[in-house]
Structures are given as C-alpha cells and as structure tokens.
C-alpha cells in the first residue's frame, strides 16, 4: 500500500484509544467536509451513539465528532487520539 | 401432512398407540375426501381428469399408510388393531384405485362411495364409523 493511503474499511475496524490508553470506542462513520474543491476528513464519529447515527436513528451532533486533527497516530490495530474528546468520553 | 411424519424423523421407533391412532385418523380423512370425489362423479359435476389424478394421489397415500403400518413394529398388545388398520388401509387403496381407473363411471363411483361410507360410516362425521371410528376408539381405550 502506497504510503498515506488508508481505506475507510480499515478506519472502521480500528479501536480508538486516547493517549493514556483509555478506550474511546469504535469508528462508526467518518465525516468529510468540502475544503477548496476536495473532501477532507473533518472527524470521526465514535462511540455507541455513533452506531445509532449510522443506522439513521439519531443525527450526529457536532460534538459527537472526534476531530481528525486530534488523531495522533494510525497504528496497525488502533487509532491514538491526542486527548479524549470530552463528548466522546461521556458516551 | 399425511406424508409419513415418521420418515422425517431419523428412523421410526416402535409405533405407539398415539401414532397408530393418528394413522387411523389420516385413513378416515382419506376416506372422507374420497367420498367428496366420488360424490362429484355420481352427480356428474366434476372433471374426470381431476378425479383420476387426485384419486390416484389419495390411493397412493392409503397404500403408503398401509405399508408404513405393516412395516412398523407396534407397541405390545396393539398388534390386532394394527393388522386391522392395515386391512382397512388396503380396502381404502382398492376403493380409491377403482375411482382412479373409472373416473367417469357414475355406477363405479356409487359403489366406491358405498365402500368408503362403510369404511368411514360418514352418516355425520361425529357418528360411529363401524370400521375406522370403532378401531380408533379401541386404540384410544387400549392406551
């Protein structure tokens, strides 16, 4: 795989953990936003509420979205997040 | 679902009285249906093709039931009832076979109807069928 290419299926499979190892949940959806002509990942929808969102049962509120810039590392089996997103932690 | 329930289950254990009773019940259902068919022919209100094919199917069921009952080992003490049931099943097979062979014959149908009535004694369904009903009764009492 060329460097820098990540498949959505892979993101959906990884566990999300904060820096200090506390689990934050799984990635249920990926929110993208148009930025000068291309679509950038704005954030990841995680946690149990995320599943409801994906099923179209609940709308994902802005605070459910874990900002992509808070993602520190994409390891083979987990995503490390700089600090647990306050709202995600509450889920 | 006269189709031999026993065949669905793995192997057939000895027929207990309840199963023997159900076998007799299905024979009386076949007899009743045979009478409906025969009525149609007697009054010339049906199609011979349907009569022939359907009578053949019912005859096949009766033969299958007879064979199943004959092959099965039966609970002790129920042998006489089982043999009688097999005999009735064979008479049922013969009567329905007649209808299959002569699906248009009003006279044949009348004979078949009489034979089935004798087997079933269908005066009214709740009535006492001399053969099957009595047999079913003895099977239950014996249980």
């Amino acid at each position, binding site marked *: 795989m060329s460097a820098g290419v990540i*498949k959505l299926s892979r993101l959906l499979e990884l566990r999300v953990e904060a820096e200090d190892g506390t689990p934050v949940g799984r990635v249920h959806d990926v929110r*993208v936003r*148009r930025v000068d002509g291309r679509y950038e*990942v704005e954030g990841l*929808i995680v946690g149990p509420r995320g599943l409801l969102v994906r099923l179209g049962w609940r709308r994902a509120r802005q605070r459910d979205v874990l900002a992509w810039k808070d993602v520190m590392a994409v390891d083979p089996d987990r995503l490390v997040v700089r600090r647990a997103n306050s709202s995600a932690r509450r889920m | 679902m006269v189709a031999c329930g026993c065949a669905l289950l793995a192997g057939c254990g000895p027929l207990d009285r309840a199963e023997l009773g159900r076998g007799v019940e299905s024979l009386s259902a076949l007899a009743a249906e045979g009478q409906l068919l025969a009525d149609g022919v007697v009054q010339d209100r049906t199609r011979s093709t349907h009569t022939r094919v359907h009578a053949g199917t019912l005859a096949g069921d009766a033969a299958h039931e007879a064979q199943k009952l004959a092959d099965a080992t039966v609970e002790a003490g129920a042998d006489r009832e089982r043999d009688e049931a097999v005999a009735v099943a064979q008479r049922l097979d013969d009567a329905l076979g007649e209808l299959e062979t002569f699906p248009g014959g009003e006279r044949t149908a009348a004979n078949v109807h009489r034979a089935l009535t004798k087997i079933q004694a269908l005066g009214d369904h709740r009535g006492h069928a001399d053969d099957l009903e009595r047999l079913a009764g003895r099977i239950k009492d014996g249980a």
Partner: protein
Amino acid sequence: MDERFDLVYRLLDDQLVDVDGRRCGRVDDVELTGAAGEPLVVTGLLTGRGAYAARLPARWRRLARALFGRDVRGSTARRVPWTEVSDVGVTVALRRRAADLGLDGDDWRPLDRVPGG
C-alpha cells in the same frame, strides 16, 4: 454534492451510476489519502467483490478471500478516482461511461444472440 456528509451513511455501499445512467456496481470501499496530523482527503472509490474481504469481520477474512477473491486491482476490484465522481445524491453519479472506467462487469454478452434477449 453536499458541503458536509458522512461517508458510511451517504457514500459507502451506495449505487454507482455512469454518465449514461447505467448501474455499474457499488461503493465497496473508500480510499483516503493523508496521515495523522495532516489532512486526510477522499481520493478514490473501490468497487468489486475483491474489496469485500477487507470489510468483513477479521475472523471471516480468509473465507471471504476464498469466496470473493483477493483485492486484485483491475480484476476483482477497481479503483475509481474521486475526480470521476460528479455527484453523491440518491446514487453516486460518475462523469464517464462504465466501460471507460472498466466498470462494466456486464461486458460478456452471451444473451445477445438469443432472440428477444
């Protein structure tokens, strides 16, 4: 195309339709390019049974590869550059014809010769 949308909710598994309106597969995966600490950009779509294995639970992956084939670009799975996508609405509309994008799996036409076929 919406200003902001969620990939799984609106794009993943959606129907691909070419410029002639022909259905030509589904979005079986989405290719993102970038890394942690940098922008992660949608750069392409993957379609074809070769992409199934990666989406199924890990413990079924070996079976899935056996059933649906490994991800062999150009045969069991095809990449559609994101620039080829004109709209993500009821379906994912493409700018060109399925054949030009190598998406017309219906390319063999045994039934053409049958009258009325």
